[in-house]
């Protein structure tokens, strides 16, 4: 249990997807104009990450890794399919996103109204594929750990995008130099937020 909490805290604060690795930046900058839409986007990212990381974990451990196909037949123990992992992961993500979109549309039209717009964008959000690749690199020992990691990094993204949106709503009322308005100041704010988040880095869990 303690191990799981550590993974979660680490994924949210210390290894925050946005501030430590710059993943998911495109949607992070594009959809942070108001708090309301950013909450929608953040929620959708948490949801998709919590689904795709465990699925990709299973794929990685039972299909792609060297010797992972032993459960199927002994003679496959030398087969190493890991060069296929990019294409497999992205296929899982794209089809999961499509699936989630269809399910939400059927089950809860209200939720679809608020999330629907963001779902297609998520397929190309680097935070999603990035989490799967980090999961592969760090070799988590079981599927619970992988799921918690997925949830954690989704939550980290949520925190970052909602925080930025709140600041951007406020900054509309201040005097920013004309050439820095919009994108420029947003970059600098994100940089400063990143510096703030770096204070978590020294924490050893």
């Amino acid at each position, binding site marked *: 249990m303690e191990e799981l909490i550590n993974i979660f805290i680490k994924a949210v604060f210390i290894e925050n997807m946005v*501030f*430590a*690795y*710059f993943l998911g930046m*495109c949607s992070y900058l594009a959809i942070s104009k108001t708090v309301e839409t950013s909450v929608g986007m953040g929620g959708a990212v948490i949801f998709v990450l919590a689904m795709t990381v465990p699925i990709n974990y299973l794929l990685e451990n039972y299909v792609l890794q060297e010797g992972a196909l032993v459960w199927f037949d002994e003679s496959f123990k030398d087969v190493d399919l890991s060069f296929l992992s990019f*294409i497999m992961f992205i296929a899982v993500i794209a089809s999961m996103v499509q699936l989630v979109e269809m399910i939400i549309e059927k089950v809860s039209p209200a939720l679809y109204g608020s999330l629907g717009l963001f779902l297609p964008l998520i397929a*190309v959000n680097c935070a999603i594929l*990035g989490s799967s690749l980090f999961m592969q690199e760090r070799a988590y020992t079981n599927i619970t750990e992988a799921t918690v990691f997925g949830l954690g990094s989704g939550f980290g993204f949520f925190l970052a995008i909602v925080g930025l949106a709140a600041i951007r709503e406020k900054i509309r009322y201040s005097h920013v130099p004309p050439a820095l*308005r919009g994108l420029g100041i947003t970059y600098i704010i994100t*940089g400063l937020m990143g510096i703030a988040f770096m204070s978590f880095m020294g924490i050893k869990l």
Partner: protein
Amino acid sequence: MSKDTLFSKKNKKLLTDPLDDNNPITVQVLGICSALAITVQLKPAVVMAVSVLFVLSTANVLVSIMRNLIPSRIRIIVQLVVIASLVILVDQVLKAFVYDVSKELSVFVGLIITNCIIMGRLEAFALGNTPGKAFLDGLGNSFGYGIILIIVAFFRELLGSGTLYGYPVLEKLGVYELGYENNGMMILPPMALITVGILIWIQRARNKKLIESN
């Protein structure tokens, strides 16, 4: 459709526009994720720029060739498959020839797949234009992307570690003897964002029509 020569004015615009007026990073907000993470040093930035150049121009041509065959409902998956196969190629080549750089880039080679600059250009340009034009568009945009990458990496490496492409410039110039110290801050990830922010500031101060209302 009128047939224009390869270097007509319109085609030249495809190449030069993304360098400044329509730069993918500072104006279109595409491809930022990878741009920021690998700009601590020049070498990975150059490798990344070349990889994106290859993937973007090839993917643009391939998708443009297939543009009338792809049903629009599943176009995203088709595009991702094209991109992913090209990226696998790049990844294997990097692993074979420049292993240390490929280690340094770690997951970011894989992330070219979800680099929005590629999806964005495929969606916005390749799906509606002929292969020749799509190729030029791919070239232009990856140059625009590469230029920003290299400028940012140049300043971060020079100020952060005092080297350029691994060569100790500042040490050879004798700047350290004057009491200069490397600015460790430049190596930290957030400074990449602030450097790009300042670049945007400079660009928009020169180019007034890019200024946003809010």
